[in-house]
């Protein structure tokens, strides 16, 4: 019984939150890694693209709520998601036409594109704040929990509760579906194959008759999907605040780099590595060990390796170690 209690405490405070956060980072990192692989630059505007997509989704969520539309136990935002994706796609295609296309034609060095993307980031930052404001917003409706801590305790008779939020379940489920779809698209469809060919060797791809503008357009469309989905899932799970989305950029880049930039599989692995390193290394094991060890050995201290202040230091230390020993990331990506 004590063993189960300890296990449940671990699941509730480490595994479930880590899994959901990891899935959110993974979808975000997929977008970054696709742009890096195909368009060959690090897109600093990704966090604000997520914010923009979420903002459009929120606008439609409010509209649907006013019209009385809902999905029952599921959040209305899912219904608004396609509109959010459409809006983001328009924004990204427009940005590409207006800005990135010029530099592509100039054959500008990747570092110039990175700086350009920073400029785009500040503009998007401003657009989002201008349209929706800077304050914190929660747009989750429907059933909040799949199972709440209290219900779990009553059901099992354990001392520890296990809570799984609808948003956490949705996040993990959506992540699986999105990743499966993306891999199917990249590996099985003609367009996907042409994108991979373009990513591997641009000149060869051109010689075999692949239209580069079409590849670029499809890439931006996929990135719009990924960014909006990641942003909406994150917003449902926590809340929407433009500043937080801007801050999300760091863990997302860390995930993409740890996994190997340009490698989709690596982005997913990286997302989970970063999320779990933030949650587990700074976790205080007192409660879990209190259940697992005999009473005489139960710890008085917190059994915390280091304070939660250091959680970012931990994920960046992992980033540096990985880059030192495997410069291309855990999975074989392009070196930075």
């Amino acid at each position, binding site marked *: 019984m004590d063993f189960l209690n300890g296990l449940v*405490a671990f699941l509730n*405070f480490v595994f479930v939150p880590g899994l959901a*956060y990891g899935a959110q980072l993974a979808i975000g990192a997929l977008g970054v890694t696709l742009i890096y692989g195909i368009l060959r630059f690090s897109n600093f505007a990704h966090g604000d693209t997520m914010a923009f997509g979420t903002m459009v989704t929120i*606008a439609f969520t409010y509209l649907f709520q006013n019209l009385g539309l809902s999905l029952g136990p599921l959040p209305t935002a899912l219904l608004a998601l396609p509109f959010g994706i459409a*809006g983001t796609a*328009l924004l990204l295609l427009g940005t590409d036409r207006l800005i990135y296309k010029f530099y592509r034609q100039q054959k500008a060095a990747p570092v110039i594109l990175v700086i350009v993307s920073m400029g785009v980031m500040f503009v998007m930052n401003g657009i989002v704040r201008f349209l929706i404001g800077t304050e914190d917003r929660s747009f989750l409706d429907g059933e909040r929990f799949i199972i709440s*801590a209290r219900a779990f305790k009553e059901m099992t008779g354990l001392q520890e509760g296990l*809570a799984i939020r609808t948003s956490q379940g949705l996040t993990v489920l959506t992540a699986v579906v999105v990743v499966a779809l993306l891999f199917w698209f990249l590996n099985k469809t003609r367009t996907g194959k042409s994108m991979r060919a373009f990513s591997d060797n641009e000149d060869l791809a051109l010689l075999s008759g692949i239209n580069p503008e079409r590849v670029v357009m499809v890439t931006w469309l996929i990135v719009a999907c990924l960014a909006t989905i990641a942003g909406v899932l994150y917003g449902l799970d926590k809340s929407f605040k433009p500043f937080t989305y801007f801050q999300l950029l760091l863990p997302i880049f860390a995930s993409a780099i740890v996994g190997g930039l340009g490698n989709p599989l690596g982005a997913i692995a990286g997302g989970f590595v970063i999320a779990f390193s933030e949650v587990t290394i700074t976790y205080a094991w*007192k409660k879990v060990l209190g259940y697992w060890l005999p009473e005489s050995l139960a710890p008085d201290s917190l059994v915390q390796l280091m304070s*939660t202040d250091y959680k970012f230091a931990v994920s960046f230390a992992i980033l540096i170690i990985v880059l030192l020993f495997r410069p291309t990331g855990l999975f074989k990506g392009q070196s930075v």
Partner: protein
Amino acid sequence: MNRITIWIVAIIVVISAGFFGWYQPKMRAQEDAASAALAAEQAAAEAAAEAEAAALAEANMIKIGIILGFTGPLESITPAMGAGAEMAIAEVNAAGTLLGGSAVTAIRADSTCIDAAAATAAAERLVTSDGVHAIMGADCSGVTGAILQNVARPNGIVMISPSATSPGLSTAEDDGLFFRTAPSDARQGVVMTQILMDRGINVVALTYTNNDYGKGLADSFEAAFIEAGGTVTISAAHEDGKADYSAEVGALASAGGEVLVVAGYTDQGGKGIIQASLDSGAFDTFVLPDGMVGQQLVDDIGDALNGSFGQFPGTDSQGAEMFQAMATEAGFDGTGAFAPESYDAAALIMLSMAAAGSSASADIKDHVMDVANAPGEEIFPGELAKAIEILAAGGDIDYVGATAVELIGAGESAGNYREIEIGDGAINTVRFR
């Protein structure tokens, strides 16, 4: 190509429809705000005209600098604070009896709340170029300390801050020039300890936002709570605006405690921690200090917050109500945070001048404590004329004002707090401490 254009136009139309739906309620709110702003502007213009007329009538001029963060993080509450201080000045001018009929002028300056260099430059301008006799301000603890050391002390100018709460200012070198009508957060730590002890809670977990406010409050609370025999199982900082708080909540839950003390902000990490704690069943009850008391938090979290409790500066003195009425009449929001403290700060400066019989800072700094504390006749908001009369006749007053002012220690408010408990989606007052 044509088909693509049609598609793009169609998508734009649909998206603008969505935004229209979302903006409708917002536009209505903006219209209301606009009409309110118009009314406030008119009132301000009237007040300015009055002040000008008074200034023309008198040649003998007293200048008071009002330095607050009119831009920056506090820009939403400083307009009411400035209006509060200027209301006290207008009241004294209307009486026209201060120092044999001198008129008082207010000169505003921007402290920015966060930029010490800009605040110092603005204060320097007030003192050297405008020649103010005393300063009402500044607002945030950091810039207040900077102005005190770089401008007030070198020039010997009295400063009374309405809102700097950092415990560090209690022990700062001030040559007897610095006072504040806001309590130190050290006092809030003691009040919070009393509230917890009265409820029979001895073991708490503590998390604070990682800045001067959060750290100062957390340290003073932890010291007071341990001295009173309580146990703090963990004191963990959280960064505002971060992506995820699972790690913090995991550590807090593991450390355990009957309640969780959250020294943070309602729309920042504090809210994230409370939400995650409730969801995971880590804590059911939260203790909310002043930065966490807000209706927005209650609305966002909902029923789960019922039973949580806390405290924020407030008083049941009748002065508070009198001030509200005066503020409503003057056309600004008297319930705004630190607006009453601002009125009191400006009033104390002018009453000390009356007591000293001089407008020079060197003379008035010794009279601030006498004017603010007993013995003497109690003075409420709106009675500044009466107070000046008593002081001019050589009498003694005890300024109560809008916030039941009682200066202790190095010249800071003793601090009255309103103990609150959340119930049925509302913030209810339990009692005053």
